């Protein structure tokens, strides 16, 4: 029996809700379009693709020819479509009812436009939490992809990770493919011939061992240096030709492999994401300790065999790490609850779409990727939240003053609103305004990020330049570069939260003073007024 390595090659295309049109257009020009056109030339190169819903609809509106091309590739059996939540939410971070609604929306949209309903799903940021299994299964999803790291954390040996495993939650079965980290770091960064040689080296006698790859398509043209490397210098074409010429490597769809192979066995994955993300989720002190520990193990030459036991935090730690992320998240949950409580006739597509947009993952987190630091992405989330709130108020009016501990920090916030504006006042001593919404502009003027130290800041002043590989290009995970010049005086961090109406008394020539503290005045609060003393 000839040795065969099924290559399950998948790419994930995503742009954050609220990203600038010029960024999307540039991404289309430098990545999505040339990638699809290259694939069109090689019908035998089977691959899978996930396009997040907001981007998908942008491409449908602005680049219908390329969507028609994608449809043609689907029709001829070259491409398998993967589903996900429509606006790319982290499924584990949204309510179950919204998980199902988001996944069904994406699947329905793919079926409507491209004629095929997905049976596999991409998990946003590969955030695995077993509670998402029943929702995926309820939507007809049979399998998902996560990192091989997820499997290593269970103690499964790397050599076993060449096919899919099966898991269940609440009796609902889902199959799970392990994405190879070795391939993620090689494609498209290693020279094409070396990448294909690596794939061929995976061949063994007996059962075919699959090479499983699923990663950001943006690595094929958008990430630094990649356009020239992948298209101008021909990496992608070389890789495809060498793969198709190989007597060993056989590109396959996940669906074909899934139908023809059997499960490698049962697995119960821990709540985790890719290994870099696990570090990003940690607070700075913990992140520094974690980073030092990882480095120590690497220096001892023990990292590869023990990395699964060096676990950082989990994605939802971002809610603890960044109060701004937590605030958005809890506001989203509150509005989701209000939407769910409406009678069916009162619910509208406009409300649902705004809720979906508010659940897009990007603005909720920060690492090498993630958009918490990007004001336009947070603004997109708040724009959706404020819009949804106004729509909900129109059918289910609120009191002009509501007080509750929205963000679960042990302090009450007061929501003062008149249908035109809303001021959210924190009752934890400062009597400051953390959210100031205009329902006419769908904007929160209080959406400011307090500057806190990040563990990578220590690298800034080292001013290291990137070291280049002799061949291939640098993986962005490993490079240090500067988009802007950063001076020591730029490294300023806030000792207080950045909000509105923080009050201070400066005596004599005192420059820095503590913020004044207040308490709510008992009995002095009217419908449209809050009084503190």
């Amino acid at each position, binding site marked *: 029996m000839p040795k065969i390595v099924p290559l399950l090659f998948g790419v994930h295309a995503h742009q954050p809700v609220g990203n600038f049109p010029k960024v999307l257009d540039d991404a289309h020009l430098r990545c999505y379009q040339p990638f699809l056109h290259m694939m069109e030339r090689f019908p035998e190169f089977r691959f899978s693709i996930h396009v997040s819903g907001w981007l998908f609809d942008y491409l449908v509106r602005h680049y219908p020819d390329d969507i028609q091309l994608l449809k043609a590739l689907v029709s001829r059996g070259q491409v398998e479509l993967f589903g996900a939540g429509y606006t790319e939410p982290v499924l584990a971070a949204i309510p179950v009812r919204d998980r199902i609604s988001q996944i069904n929306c994406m699947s329905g949209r793919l079926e409507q436009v491209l004629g095929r309903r997905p049976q596999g799903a991409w998990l946003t940021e590969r955030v695995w939490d077993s509670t998402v299994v029943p929702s995926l299964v309820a939507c007809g999803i049979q399998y998902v992809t996560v990192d091989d790291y997820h499997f290593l954390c269970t103690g499964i040996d790397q050599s076993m990770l060449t096919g899919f495993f099966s898991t269940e939650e609440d009796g609902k079965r889902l199959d799970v493919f392990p994405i190879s980290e070795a391939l993620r770091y090689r494609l498209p960064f290693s020279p094409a011939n070396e990448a294909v040689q690596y794939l061929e080296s995976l061949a063994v006698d007996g059962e075919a061992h699959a090479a499983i790859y699923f990663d950001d398509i943006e690595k094929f043209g958008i990430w630094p240096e990649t356009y020239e490397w992948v298209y101008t210098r021909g990496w992608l074409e070389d890789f495809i030709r060498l793969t198709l010429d190989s007597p060993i490597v056989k590109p396959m769809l996940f669906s074909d492999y899934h139908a023809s192979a059997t499960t490698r066995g049962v697995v119960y994955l821990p709540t985790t994401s890719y290994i870099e993300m696990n570090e990003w989720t940690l607070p700075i002190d913990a992140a520094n300790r974690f980073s030092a520990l990882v480095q120590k193990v690497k220096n001892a030459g023990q990292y590869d065999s023990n990395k699964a036991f060096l676990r950082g935090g989990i994605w939802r730690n971002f809610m603890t790490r960044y109060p701004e992320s937590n605030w958005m998240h809890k506001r989203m949950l509150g509005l989701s609850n209000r939407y769910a409580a409406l009678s069916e006739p009162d619910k509208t597509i406009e409300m649902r779409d705004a809720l979906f947009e508010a659940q897009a993952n990007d603005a909720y987190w920060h690492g090498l990727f993630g958009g918490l630091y990007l004001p336009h992405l947070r*603004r997109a989330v708040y724009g959706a939240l404020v819009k949804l709130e106004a729509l909900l108020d129109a059918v289910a009016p609120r009191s002009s003053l509501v007080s509750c501990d929205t963000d679960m920090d042990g302090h009450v916030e007061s929501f003062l609103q*008149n249908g035109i504006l809303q001021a959210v006042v924190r009752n934890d001593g400062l009597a400051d305004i953390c959210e100031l919404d*205009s329902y*006419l502009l769908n904007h929160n003027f209080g959406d*400011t990020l307090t500057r806190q130290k990040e563990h990578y800041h220590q690298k*800034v002043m080292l001013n290291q330049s990137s070291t280049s590989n002799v061949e291939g290009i640098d993986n962005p995970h490993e490079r240090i570069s*500067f988009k802007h010049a950063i001076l020591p005086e730029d490294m300023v961090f806030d000792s207080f939260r*950045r909000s509105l109406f923080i009050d201070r008394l400066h005596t004599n020539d005192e420059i820095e003073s503590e913020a004044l503290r207040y308490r709510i*005045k008992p009995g002095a609060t009217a419908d449209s007024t809050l009084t*503190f003393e």
Partner: protein
Amino acid sequence: MHKQIALEGRALVVTYVFGNVPDARFEVELNLAMPSCDGPAGRFEMNEEVLGGFAQQIQSRPCDEIRLRDDILGGQLMLLVNQTATLRSAPCFSVSQSEAGFEKIMQAVTLHLDWSCQLLKSPLVIRLTIDS
């Protein structure tokens, strides 16, 4: 000292009532998320004079009113005080990393308004009106 926060139509109105007035300066800080950030679509206007973009610093300027006009937002914010303040403004930049490298991102326009407490003889009213 009392601090009262109220909504009046399109305006947020914050009123301060002082009891025993100390020999000090009273300062109010507002961090405002303006979509134009440090781009050309945002500008300060005072008495029909354009003072500059949101990334420009304003240093110790007497102020009874200032307008923050933002074309990306498609709206403006008018700040009025009933007793002349000394205004300072500065952009707030963060330093973070992305796949493109380390970068500075403008997070807010930070306004500081201050008054000598000795001169505050009546309630101090700050009115923030938001218009589309």
